[in-house]
């Protein structure tokens, strides 16, 4: 039946029919909820009643009038620091495991496995690791003779709790970053390395002058994931500390969820989400600006 149609028309039909399903899915599960979110942010909907009273920009005004809300971003800083360390470790392992090495696939799998695990399960597991009295970390420190450290309250000390939580994130996502780095390493043409070798470059020089510059776009991508991840942490503190002690590990997203589901203020919570969205875009713009200062490739 398609025979009578011209080639370009057939092409159009195929393109449209192939694209319909994914576009529909995208629209239903991403764009429609996003548009709804924007709409809710202009109402003071309580989350269940049929009426959604329009309040204009009141929610946004309320968020910006309450500096407390933005203070929780300080807690996200720990995740950012740990994210940078995570990327450095990931590059290290990627470079090491990209060499000819006995059992390198085994090590790759070993490092990647934590990423496959469910986030809540990981959080639960680390609850046992960080437990002050019966936790495996303190038991280990104690048996190493570091009895001064073996009483540390990893999740109950204000300055420490966010780093403890973020280190869990490091353990979990390092392998993921590593896999991306390995992929980009393998995309670097081997002849550049051979040329450098012939010219007598040391391995440090090769890493610094050839490997890293060639990986720049991927490093940017990973930093992007790290920054957005750091700004949107939720599951770890939610499961492990509930934001405690006394709010010291509360994150912005957790606050949004509390506002919506504990305090029945979906309107305000939607406004907070939209603000987070803009905040992420803003931070990423700065990141782009800083990283591209040396001119784009």
């Amino acid at each position, binding site marked *: 039946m398609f025979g009578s149609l011209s080639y370009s028309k057939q092409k159009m039909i195929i393109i449209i029919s192939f694209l319909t399903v994914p576009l529909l899915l995208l629209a239903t599960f991403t764009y429609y909820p996003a548009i709804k979110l924007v709409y809710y942010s202009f109402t003071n909907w309580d*989350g*269940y*009643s049929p009426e959604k009273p329009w309040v204009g920009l009141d929610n946004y005004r309320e968020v910006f009038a309450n500096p407390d809300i933005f203070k929780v971003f300080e807690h996200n800083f720990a995740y950012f620091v740990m994210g940078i360390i995570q990327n450095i470790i990931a590059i290290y392992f990627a470079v090491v495991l990209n060499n000819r090495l006995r059992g390198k696939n085994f090590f790759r799998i070993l490092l990647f496995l934590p990423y496959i695990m469910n986030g809540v399960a990981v959080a639960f597991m680390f*609850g046992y690791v*960080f*437990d*002050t*009295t*019966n*936790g495996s970390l303190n038991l280990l420190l104690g048996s190493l003779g570091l009895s001064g450290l073996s009483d540390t*309250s*990893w*999740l*109950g*000390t204000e300055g420490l709790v966010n780093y403890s939580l973020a280190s869990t994130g490091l353990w979990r996502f390092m392998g993921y970053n590593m896999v991306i780095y390995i992929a980009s390493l393998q995309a670097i043409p081997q002849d550049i390395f051979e040329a450098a070798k012939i010219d007598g470059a040391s391995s440090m020089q090769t890493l610094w002058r050839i490997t890293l510059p060639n990986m720049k776009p991927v490093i940017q991508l990973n930093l992007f994931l790290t920054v957005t991840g750091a700004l949107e942490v939720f599951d770890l503190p939610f499961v492990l*500390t*509930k934001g*405690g*002690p*006394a*709010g010291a590990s509360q994150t912005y997203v957790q606050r949004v969820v*509390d*506002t919506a*589901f*504990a*305090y*029945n*203020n979906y309107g305000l919570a939607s406004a907070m989400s939209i603000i987070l969205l803009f905040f992420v875009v803003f931070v990423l713009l700065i990141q782009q600006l800083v990283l591209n200062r040396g001119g784009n490739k």
Partner: protein
Amino acid sequence: MAVVMSLLLSGCGSDNSGSGNTPAADPGKSNQETSKNASDISGKITFLTNRTDMIGKEYDEYLKRFNEKYPNIEVELEPSQTDYNQQAKVRMASQELPDVMFIPTIPNSDLPKYFAPLDDLGLNDQVTFKDFKSFDGKLYGISSGNSTSGIVYNKKAFADAGITEVPKTWDEFLAACEKLKQKGIVPLASNFKDKWPLNNWVYDLPRVIENNPNFPNDKLNTDTPFTMDNGYGKAMGLLRQLNEKGYLEKDINSTNWEQSKKDIAAGKFGMYFLGNWVINQVIGAGTTSDNVGFFPLPYDNSGKPSAALSPDFFYAVAKDSEHVDAAKAFVKWMIEESGYEDFAGFIPPLKNKESKLAQLKEFQSGGVKLQEGTVDDPVVTDISNKAQLDLPAVAQEFVLASDPQKVLDKWNAAWAKARKEVKH
């Protein structure tokens, strides 16, 4: 699961005067009447339950007995996700309610929008907390079981520490804690980190200390609801005192709820201050019923015990259910005949029923006065939500702060601001 339950226990109370001792008129008679036309009622109903642990076990047995009486009603159980309240609200927003469910936290004025009145069940003169989920004189929810809060303790741990008699005053209580501590037993498991186990300290104790069931609602009339010398300050002060003396867990920011039940059962921890629902869970964690005791917390030195009575979840029938009669019959049967309250460790929801739990008998043996609260004032709830006030979280801050007065000042300020905005 326990989290969901205890959340519901939170801001509650009502004003039935009997404490469950009124003798039964003749329960057999009314049952006969309903069973005459029991087989006429038919239909398939769903019940959204929070007790996912009972599906395939106790519920199977309940449904078997239920179907002996109502052969033509088919009950389908729907297990709730972790947060019942949240899930129920989502279902309400989408207008797809199960036929039988528990009422989530919504203002009573919204009840008629979603639920059918239950006045025709013939239980009106027997149910406790009758005014709790009523609106315009109509009853929309019936308590599935009631709770009180007090000290749940390991009798063997008490005996080992040389405590021969349960403490009747706060000083005696502290002395008992000291004895337990000397014995290497953690006196009171607060489960501080998890926040919800502090609910009884901030929802039950303040109104009992104030001897005013309406104390939580009185916040409406003040800009400074939290002071050191009112119910809130005193109740949180007791918890702070226990922590300062080292009578709580070694590190209160690192506690483990599931493990604490086993530790109470094993006598490594001495006590809980929680609702009576926890008794069966402690027994289930590995001890015998006669090793677990229950007494009212002696919050002062008067020697006159009193404790708060609170309802748990309320059964309700969806207004738009296709089989309202079947749903109502199921609710009535669950309350009258299932025996759910004994399994769950509740004080029975009907006034003329007596609990079968030994611990509840011990609790009441000291002549405790059970104080029932009033319905939460929706305006107070509005202000609390606006101020993002979460009392157990305030208690956490209060206990951890170097200067607790500052914590009270901070929340007083938030309260005053929100009160102005809501009332304007």
